[in-house]
């Protein structure tokens, strides 16, 4: 497989370009997508034109509603919501329309669409521009939820999401946009939804890390490895459907679980993972399941306070020590 080198932002742009070339029914709509606040899709309009690459008014409800209606009538729209926080402005078309349409119509309609939206704190953008809301969507039957942490995953998963016949919530991370790595050039390269990836093998403890927490977990694994603690890192990549097999296998092997997400922990991704293990692998557990994530608070504008809130390497180390009984 021929490889290039790209950022996550670049990989997303590549995935969109390739899929738009491949299938004329793929279109992209959203606020200022031709330019892009983060520049992810900047310039693509030059190739695809304003019929397929559409800046919309500030109307999140109509953006998603339009995508749903278009998907029901033969298109494969990608809708962009500029910040995950703004998903609050279009929950109805996502939750009650896109997610339930196939079911409500007894399978006669399907809604092949993708909602792309960046989340995550760390930019001093304050409480309304920093949230990570993955868990809401995980709990909505009918949606798939994807959350990549590397350029190759971003590209492969986005291509699969676009080709999927269901509404897929594709959650990006602002701080990760400019992380770079190898990305296959092959236009047929995809990564199936629903497959976790074991990023690092280890024996003592499993960290299931999501999105922005993945690079942090990898750094911690190095650090702890030096201390003789062998950490296995699993990135679910797709949050729904979750690859429970891979996760169970890992925890059965290590006997210890730390979950790591950037969003608020209450009813979050980590809660779901903990519940999964507490039910299905309870007898393999050798220690408490420890969650790492944002405590039950908002992100401050003040950047030091913001960073004190965002879960980081220190939090991960503390959690691992607790999980392995080295508190």
């Amino acid at each position, binding site marked *: 497989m021929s490889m290039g080198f790209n950022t996550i932002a670049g990989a997303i742009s590549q995935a969109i370009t390739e899929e738009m070339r491949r299938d004329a029914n793929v*279109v992209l*709509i959203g606020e200022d997508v031709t330019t892009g606040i983060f520049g992810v899709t900047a310039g693509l309009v030059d190739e695809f034109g304003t*019929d*397929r690459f*559409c800046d*919309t*008014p500030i*109307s999140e*409800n*109509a953006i*998603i*509603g*339009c*995508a*749903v*209606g*278009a*998907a*029901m*009538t*033969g*298109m494969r*729209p990608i809708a962009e919501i500029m910040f995950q926080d703004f998903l609050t402005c279009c929950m*109805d*078309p996502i939750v*009650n*329309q896109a997610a339930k*349409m*196939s*079911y*409500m*119509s*007894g*399978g*006669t*309609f*399907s*809604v*092949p669409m993708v909602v792309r939206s960046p989340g995550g704190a760390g930019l001093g953008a304050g409480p309304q521009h920093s949230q990570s809301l993955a868990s809401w969507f995980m709990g909505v*039957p*009918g949606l*798939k939820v994807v959350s990549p942490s590397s350029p190759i995953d971003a590209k492969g998963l986005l291509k699969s999401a676009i080709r999927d*016949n*269901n509404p897929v919530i594709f959650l990006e991370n602002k701080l990760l946009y400019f992380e770079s790595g190898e990305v296959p050039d092959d236009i047929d390269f995809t990564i199936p939804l629903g497959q976790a990836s074991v990023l690092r093998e280890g024996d003592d403890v499993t960290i299931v890390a999501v999105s922005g927490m993945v690079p942090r977990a990898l750094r911690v694994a190095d650090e702890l490895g030096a201390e003789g603690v062998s950490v296995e890192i699993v990135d679910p990549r797709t949050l729904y459907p979750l690859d429970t097999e891979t996760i169970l296998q890992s925890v059965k092997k290590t006997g210890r679980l730390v979950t790591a997400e950037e969003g608020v922990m209450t009813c979050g991704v980590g809660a779901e993972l903990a519940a999964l293990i507490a039910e299905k692998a309870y007898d393999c557990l050798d220690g408490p399941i420890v969650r790492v994530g944002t405590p039950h608070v908002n992100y401050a504008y003040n950047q030091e306070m913001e960073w004190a809130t965002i879960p980081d390497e220190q939090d991960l180390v503390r959690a691992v020590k607790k999980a392995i009984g080295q508190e």
Partner: protein
Amino acid sequence: MGTKFKLKQKKQVGKDAALALLKRMLLIRRFEETLARLFADSEVKGFVHLSIGQEACPTGVCAHLTNDDYITSTHRGHGHLIGKGGDIKLAMAELFGKTEGYCKGRGGSMHVAAFDLGILGANGIVGAGLVLATGSGFSAKYQNNDRVTACFFGDGASNQGTFHEAANLASVWKLPILFVCENNGWAEFSPQSSHQKIEKVSTRAVGYGMPGVTVDGDDIEAVYSATADAVAWIRKGNGPILLECLTHRWEGHYAGDPQPYRDQDELQAITQHCPIERFKKQLIERKTITAAEFEALSVEVESEIGEAVEFGRQGTDPNPQDFMSYIYAD
């Protein structure tokens, strides 16, 4: 900014068209009356909203649509489904919650949808159909076919943010959408005067740079004629139009609603607006049809309804354990 839209003089329809319109209205009327009984008898469950008295609007509008055109509908969706050519057997089966139903018993009254007929579904969320319509409008425009989307919604729905966002997007993008406001003067238990400070919802069109017109929605020829003009204009690529049909809700908000909040005298007199009686009388006076022809039509409809009820009643119950199906498409 392209051609200006102007409503032409209302036209009288010929015999064939008249009979087709009458039949469609009668189908809606009898379907709903039958449903009211089935609901009272607990044969049909859930929340059921009837279109009795409002038959002219879906009938007159959909008469100008082909199977390729789209509609989006509301919680009060049976009239739209039947108006657009929906099979009353499959509709009735859906209301009985059967596998043969349009949605295999999953959707029921508030969600009936029919892919082949471009019916993007009734909708339990007031105002949601408005934004979905921008999507089918987008598809049609992008694919450069001449399909029109008729987007039905009520006076109450016209206060939802979705109305505003959809109307604005449709006008900016010149989408081929006929926004059809069925203004029956009520949003549940609230009269129009309590929920908006305008008399005509069509007034709002100006805020989107879109033509807006109001017609007597209980006058089938007025609806038919206005829609003919509007759909022709839209198919030419001129963008959306807001058509308001003033109509009357004879029954409660939902089947079983005793309507204590309504003026009883007004309710007593409401049948004077009957779009079917009015049209029938005019047609007979004009000698377009005879009373006997109308009778024959009634009998035909009655028997079709009877068949539909039997079809529905005899349908197959889905296996209750099969609740995982259709959550995800393959």
